[in-house]
């Protein structure tokens, strides 16, 4: 009795303690420096009931730590978490508009079921129970009629995947997808292939950065943007190669107007110079890389002279940049970019970019690149399990699917084998549903989409819509009736990130990091529910309750941390925490400090006082050689447009996130319609002036927009920002405004990546 009681009371008091610390983390962090302004000082100046809660932003996918202020139950102001060094307590325009999203009258807060045709916009409001029953019934029908695999599950990165990919596998589907194939997939694959995982870029200490359209200052990741400007302020040379003058390019030392879609030609010419002018770091390559000779052979023909014409950068410039870069190394970064889709040979491009870093030996060096030290890597270096790891609640094994996935990931010889299971080649869902994939034992018949917007973010928008219309079930979980939700059967209202608690997350930079995930800042509006609850309740409705062995998110979190109360308290109070000291394995001072702290790591230190890399870097890929004969680097010249066409490209804007928040009231007020950039010479030839209405068209689509005459773009290229031209009439502010880029893109998918292109040929006519 006594024992039982004490364990209960222990449990209870722990819960009570958690409740107490949750949501009002005001005294945290700055406490260790005496005399500074404390959150208490500020709180006491507010009238009424004020809370300041550390959490994580979700206006884009960068997941910046934030601190949200709530006064008398109403969300008021969001800033970056002041305890976060990397982002300096800062937040971008999108992040600042979080509460505006939460209180938006155009937000969906009750489940709806379609009553008209798909895309007709006729709905009825239903109870959660009716929605769950409807979905569970349909999923069961599809399972009986075809197979569970006929339902594809596409989720937003991170948290959302955790819940619904789990539900998917419990249900019996292995067709798991994310946004990757429309955005970063190729560089992620390249990172896995070359380094075993994607390394990070140490911009701030770099002296020379080559950037090929990684739009750090408009597709803002705050930590990158800060580091980038820090490097520039400290005199780093930045060379930008992109077809238009982005803000990033405008801050660079040099801007080269590379021909759209021809980046690979430049990169290969650059690499050829590094190798054949003997500019690479021979010791590093010998010690830490494999396959150098094969790589050398494969790029021997790609001289700068041979590549210059294709990429429209002259051979001398290519060589000069390679020499300057090698000279600055190892404090030099060849940025492997972010949003991919420049070429159908995207994997070659990103691998080549990754390899250049290895060739100059900047790995684990300040101002170069470093391997991300998750708890497991960190612990393996220490030699003891010091850094805490998060556990997942145990759940029953998943049923084994009868057939391979539509992208065949996990099968022998799969073209896409480098993609993670959760990433998947999402661009294949539509072709599969329309029966276009060769030798397919089944078609996709149902699509469960959580916080992803393929109608806007996948190429060939019309095909995606046609596929959805051909399906038997389309379920969308979102905070609004997105372009994708517009064609759904059921739309379930997710909470916004400020209304929910989520599971803790663990990651790693130079040392292991941990995040609270998200903390509830205000109570949910309407009947919206967080994804963890939707997955659990829907799972229970489907008879899969055993897969969700936790009472609520608090219970889940406690199963994650086990007995590590310190961690849970830290995370709730500060929003984030890290473990140990930063480690750069090839920097003497860093290694010395690390070993001082963790003497058990002494045996990892080599004769130079450094640590060896845990894995060989692959400059030749045996895997790719097997599946597609592309173990080395292969260049296939590609004509993207006809002679009488112009290139059309798109890019990021700082005040809107791709397919996500174009309808946000505040952000939409900043820019509702994005004009199409056109060079003055081209405009003159076509007799176009600022503000003229034009149509840009090709055989895939016709899009309308207004002209912006600017020198900031190549003469043969049109540019507009991505994330405009919303289809959903429920998003009243954004609907129909601007160019919807993906309607125009060609249907081809890249080799080994399945990624579409973000560049295409178009013609222009005046309206």
């Amino acid at each position, binding site marked *: 009795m006594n024992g039982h009681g004490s364990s209960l009371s222990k449990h209870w008091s722990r819960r009570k303690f958690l409740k107490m610390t949750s949501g009002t983390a005001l005294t945290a962090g700055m406490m260790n420096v005496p005399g500074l302004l404390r959150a208490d000082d500020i709180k006491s100046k507010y009238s009424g009931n004020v809370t300041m809660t550390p959490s994580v932003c979700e206006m884009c996918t960068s997941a910046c730590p934030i601190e949200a202020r709530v006064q008398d139950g109403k969300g008021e102001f969001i800033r970056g978490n002041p305890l976060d060094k990397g*982002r300096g307590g800062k937040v*971008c325009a999108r992040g600042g508009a979080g509460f505006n999203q939460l209180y938006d009258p155009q937000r969906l807060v009750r489940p709806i079921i379609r009553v008209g045709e798909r895309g007709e916009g006729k709905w009825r409001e239903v109870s959660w129970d009716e929605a769950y029953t409807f979905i569970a019934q349909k999923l069961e029908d599809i399972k009986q009629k075809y197979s569970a695999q006929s339902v594809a599950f596409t989720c937003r990165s991170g948290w959302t995947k955790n819940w619904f990919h789990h539900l998917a596998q419990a249900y019996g589907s292995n067709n798991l997808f994310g946004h990757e194939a429309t955005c970063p997939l190729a560089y992620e694959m390249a990172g896995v292939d070359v380094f075993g995982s994607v390394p990070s870029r140490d911009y701030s200490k770099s002296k020379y950065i080559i950037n090929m359209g990684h739009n750090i200052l408009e597709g803002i990741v705050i930590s990158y943007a800060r580091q980038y400007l820090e490097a520039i302020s400290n005199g780093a040379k930045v060379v930008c190669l992109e077809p238009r003058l982005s803000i990033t390019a405008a801050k660079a030392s040099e801007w080269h107007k590379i021909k759209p879609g021809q980046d690979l030609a430049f990169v290969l010419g650059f690499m050829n110079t590094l190798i054949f002018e003997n500019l690479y770091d021979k010791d590093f390559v010998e010690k830490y890389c494999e396959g150098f000779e094969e790589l050398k052979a494969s790029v021997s023909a790609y001289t700068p002279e041979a590549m210059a014409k294709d990429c429209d950068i002259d051979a001398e410039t290519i060589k000069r940049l390679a020499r300057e870069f090698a000279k600055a190394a190892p404090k030099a970064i060849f940025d492997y970019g972010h949003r991919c889709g420049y070429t159908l040979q995207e994997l070659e491009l990103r691998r080549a970019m990754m390899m250049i870093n290895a060739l100059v030996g900047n790995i684990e060096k300040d101002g170069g690149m470093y391997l991300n030290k998750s708890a497991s890597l960190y612990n393996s270096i220490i030699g003891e399990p010091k850094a805490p790891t998060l556990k997942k609640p145990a759940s029953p094994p998943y049923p084994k699917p009868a057939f391979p996935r539509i992208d065949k990931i996990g099968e022998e010889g799969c073209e896409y084998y480098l993609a993670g299971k959760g990433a998947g080649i999402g661009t294949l869902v539509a072709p599969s549903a329309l029966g276009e994939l060769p030798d397919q034992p089944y078609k996709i018949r149902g699509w469960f989409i959580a916080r992803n917007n393929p109608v806007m973010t996948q190429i060939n928008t019309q095909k995606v819509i046609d596929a959805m219309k051909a399906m038997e079930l389309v379920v969308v979980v979102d905070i609004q009736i997105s372009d994708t939700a517009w064609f759904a059967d059921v739309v379930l209202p997710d909470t916004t990130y400020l209304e929910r608690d989520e599971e803790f997350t663990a990651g790693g930079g130079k040392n292991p990091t941990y995040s609270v995930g998200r903390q509830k800042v205000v109570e949910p509006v309407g009947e919206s529910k967080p994804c963890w609850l939707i997955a659990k309740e829907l799972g229970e409705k489907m008879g899969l309750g055993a897969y969700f062995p936790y009472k609520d998110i608090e219970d889940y979190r406690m199963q994650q941390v086990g007995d590590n109360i310190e961690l849970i308290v830290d995370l709730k109070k500060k929003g984030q925490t890290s473990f140990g000291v930063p480690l750069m394995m090839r920097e003497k001072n860093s290694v010395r400090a690390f070993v001082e702290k963790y003497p058990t790591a002494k045996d990892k230190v080599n004769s130079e006082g450094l640590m060896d890399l845990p894995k060989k870097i692959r400059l030749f890929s045996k895997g790719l050689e097997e599946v597609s004969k592309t173990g080395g680097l292969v260049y296939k010249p590609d004509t993207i447009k006809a002679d009488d066409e112009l290139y059309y490209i798109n890019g990021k804007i700082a005040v809107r996130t791709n397919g996500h928040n174009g309808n946000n009231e505040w952000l939409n007020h900043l820019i509702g319609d994005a004009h199409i950039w056109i060079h003055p010479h081209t405009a003159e030839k076509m007799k176009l002036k600022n503000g003229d209405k034009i149509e840009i068209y090709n055989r895939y689509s016709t899009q309308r927009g207004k002209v912006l005459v600017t020198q900031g773009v190549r003469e043969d290229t049109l540019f507009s920002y991505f994330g405009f031209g919303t289809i959903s009439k429920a998003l009243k502010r954004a609907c129909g405004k601007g160019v919807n880029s993906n309607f125009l893109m060609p249907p081809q998918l890249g080799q080994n990546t399945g990624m579409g292109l973000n560049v295409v040929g178009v013609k222009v006519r005046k309206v």
Partner: protein
Amino acid sequence: MAKKYAMIHDNNLCIGCQACSIACRAENKIPNEVYRIQVWIQGPNQHADGSLNYDFHRQSCVHCENPPCVKVCPTKASYINQDGIVLIDKKKCVGCLYCVEACPYKARYVDPVTQAPDKCTFCYESRLSRGEQPACVTVCPTDALIFGDLNNPSDKISQVISRKITYQQKEHLGTRPKMFIVPNTQGGKIR
């Protein structure tokens, strides 16, 4: 000792992301159709060497030491407070809009709700009084804004102003703005 609040807008660090504008809107509850602050991205402008760049103009009140708006206000509704911040006492305002027209920086607009002129206050009422920095400075992702007290020599702003080249807009008008601009040297600068 009275303070002399001032701000630096560093064109080299500014990226025109409008985080300042949104933070201001949230903190000061600005009606949707008007702005206390915008950052205008101007250009591309061509340098002598042919390279192109953008300039970033912070459009907001510059808090003149000799403010025309205060001079022309017939009822002293516009005033400069002890800390050098130009403010509006809405109770006293009759809405003649003399200040709106007299401001050489077009910093004032008519608030559609109160029908009185409004403008940037360095968040005097919403944040400074609580010991916080203005909203725009608090969120600026690239630290392009520095705010502080020029009467305090150890304040960061005093140090940066004595170290970096800055200018004030329309100095020739004798308004003595307390918004200091670090001119853009990005682009065209071969390092």
